[in-house]
C-alpha cells in the first residue's frame, strides 16, 4: 500500500533522513518508532507530499508521491504532530471545514468517525483551542478521517498525552484498522511498538531494523537479568563499577543488566552485590522488552 524506495532528504547541512526503504501492506498498522530527530516527521511530510525528497521514490496505493500528489492528498488522511486545527473555530466548524475542503459532508462519512466523534460531540460548540489534550486529539483524528481516506498517517499522536488517553487512542486505531484503513503511525513511546503489526526502529535519520515487534524481541539474543535491591541508586552505581557488567539500566522497579560477553552468571552478580551489602536483593532472568532491543541497537550510535 505504501512503498518507499531509498528516500533521502537534507535541510541545508542537516541530513534529516538517509536512504530509507520500507513497505507497508494494505490494512497494516505500521509504526515508526524512534526519539526526536529520528526523521519520522520528515518521512511523513514527504509521503504527505508536503516536502520533496532529494533522492528516492515512493508510491501510495500505486500513485507516485510527486507526479500524483493531488490523488494522494485525496486518498490519505494526515494528523500532524502539532495540533493544526483552527483554534478559533468550534469543534463542529472544524469538522465541517475539513469535510468541505474534501468536497464531502460530515453526514456522508459519519459512520467512520462516529465512535470517536461521539465522545466530543457534547462539546461541539466549544472552540477547538479550548479543548483538553485528549479531546483535541480526538477532533484531529476525526478531521483526518472525514474524507474516508484509505491510508492514515499519524505523526506522534500520543506525545505528551497521559497513559489513559494513550491507551484509548490505540484502541481507536485498532478499530480503524478493522475497517480496512492502512495506518502509518509514529511514536517515541517504545511500549506502543508492541501494538503495531510491524515497526521500523529509527534513529538519526536511519532505519535500524524493520520487523514484527515479536520477531524483534525474539531476535534479542543477549542474556538479560532483572536485579533489584532496597537502594536502587546505589545498586546501579555498584553494578556499573563492576568489571563484569556490560550495561545496567533502570526499567521501572528493576534494573536490566547484561554481563560482559553474556558469560556472567546470576550468582556472580548476586555474590558481588551481597559483598556490597545490598539488602532485599533479587536477581533473576528476564525476557527482553522492545525497549531493550532498541537500546541494544542504539548502543553504538550514542555519545
Amino acid at each position: 500500500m505504501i512503498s518507499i524506495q531509498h528516500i533521502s532528504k537534507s535541510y541545508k547541512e542537516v541530513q534529516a533522513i538517509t536512504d530509507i526503504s520500507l513497505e507497508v501492506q494494505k490494512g497494516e498498522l505500521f509504526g515508526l518508532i524512534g526519539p526526536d530527530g529520528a526523521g519520522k516527521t520528515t518521512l511523513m511530510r514527504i509521503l504527505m507530499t508536503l516536502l520533496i525528497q532529494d533522492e528516492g521514490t515512493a508510491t501510495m496505493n500505486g500513485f507516485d508521491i510527486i507526479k500524483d500528489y493531488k490523488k494522494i492528498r485525496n486518498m490519505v488522511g494526515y494528523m500532524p504532530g502539532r495540533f493544526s486545527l483552527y483554534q478559533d473555530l468550534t469543534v463542529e466548524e472544524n469538522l465541517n471545514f475539513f469535510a468541505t475542503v474534501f468536497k464531502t459532508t460530515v453526514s456522508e462519512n459519519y459512520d467512520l468517525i462516529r465512535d470517536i466523534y461521539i465522545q466530543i460531540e457534547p462539546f461541539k460548540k466549544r472552540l477547538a483551542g479550548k479543548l483538553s489534550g485528549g479531546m483535541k486529539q480526538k477532533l484531529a483524528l476525526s478531521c483526518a478521517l472525514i474524507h474516508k481516506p484509505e491510508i492514515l498517517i499519524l505523526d506522534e499522536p500520543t506525545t505528551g498525552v497521559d497513559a489513559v488517553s494513550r491507551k484509548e487512542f490505540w484502541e481507536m486505531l485498532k478499530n480503524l484498522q478493522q475497517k480496512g484503513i492502512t495506518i502509518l503511525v509514529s511514536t517515541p513511546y517504545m511500549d506502543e511498538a508492541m501494538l503495531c503489526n510491524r515497526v521500523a526502529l529509527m534513529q538519526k535519520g536511519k532505519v535500524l531494523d524493520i520487523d514484527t515487534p515479536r520477531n524483534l524481541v525474539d531476535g534479542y539474543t543477549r542474556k538479560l537479568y532483572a536485579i533489584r535491591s532496597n537502594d536502587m541508586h546505589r545498586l546501579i552505581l555498584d553494578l556499573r563499577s563492576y568489571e563484569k557488567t556490560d550495561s545496567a539500566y533502570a526499567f521501572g522497579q528493576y534494573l536490566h543488566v547484561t554481563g560482559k560477553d553474556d558469560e556472567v552468571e546470576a550468582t556472580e552478580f548476586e555474590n558481588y552485590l551481597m559483598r556490597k551489602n545490598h539488602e532485599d536483593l533479587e536477581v533473576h532472568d528476564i525476557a527482553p522488552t522492545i525497549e531493550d532491543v532498541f537500546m541494544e541497537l542504539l548502543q553504538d550510535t550514542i555519545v
Partner: protein
Amino acid sequence: MEKVIEVRNLVKKFGSFVANDHLNFDVYQGEIFGFLGANGAGKTTAMKILCGLSSPTSGEAKVASFDIYKETEKVKRNIGYMSQKFSLYEDLTVAENIRFFSGVYGISPADRKEKQDKLLKDLGLESARDSLIGSLPLGWKQKLAFSVAIFHDPKIVFLDEPTGGVDPITRRKFWDLIYEASDRGITVFVTTHYMDEAEYCNRVSIMNAGRIEALDTPENLKKQYSAKNMDEVFLKIARNVD
C-alpha cells in the same frame, strides 16, 4: 527531615471550574517527588502556584519556607525549573546560556566563572563551551539544561516532563542526573507520562480531576491498588475503577 514544600488546603478556581481542589501534601529535602496525573488533572496549575507564577484562590503553601502569596520573588530565587519545551536558548552558545541564567539568578561574575569551569569539566563539555546549543546532541543538551536549572543551587528543582521525546538511553542517563541532584540534597519535583519513571521516585502523588487521589511510595501504592506496576496503579486511579 526538613520540609521544603508544604501545601495546605490549596484551592485554585478559574471561574466556576475548580482546577485544584484542596490539595494537601509535604515534600521533603532531597526527595524525588513524582507529580502524576492525566492531562487536565490540574498538575500544571499546581506547579505554577508552587513556582510563584500564579496565586491560589485559597489555602496555604510554603516553598523553600517562603510564602507563595507574599514572597514569590524569594520562592523563584530558590527554585530551578526545566521542561522539555523550555530549557536553553538554541541560538546562544553554552557559555552564553550559562551567563544569561547566572544573570537572571543573580550569581556574581566571579562566582559564575568558577562554577562554570567546574560544571563544564564535570560534564565533559569543555570543548563545547563556544558551541551553539542548537548544534549539540540531544543527550548533551539535556545534561546541560538540567545543570543550568540547578546552577544557582536551588532548594528545589521542578522538572516538567523533562524526558519527552528522548531516546531510551538518554532518558535513563537523565535519571542518573536526577539521582545525583537528590544525593546532593536538592529536592526534585518531577512530572512525567512515562510510568516506569514513576517507579524511580521516592514518593508519587496521582492527581485526578483537581484532587490528589493517592500519595505514597511506589511500593505502597502498588500494594494498596493490588497492581503489579505503576502503570496499573495510574490506570486504576485515572479511570476511576477499582
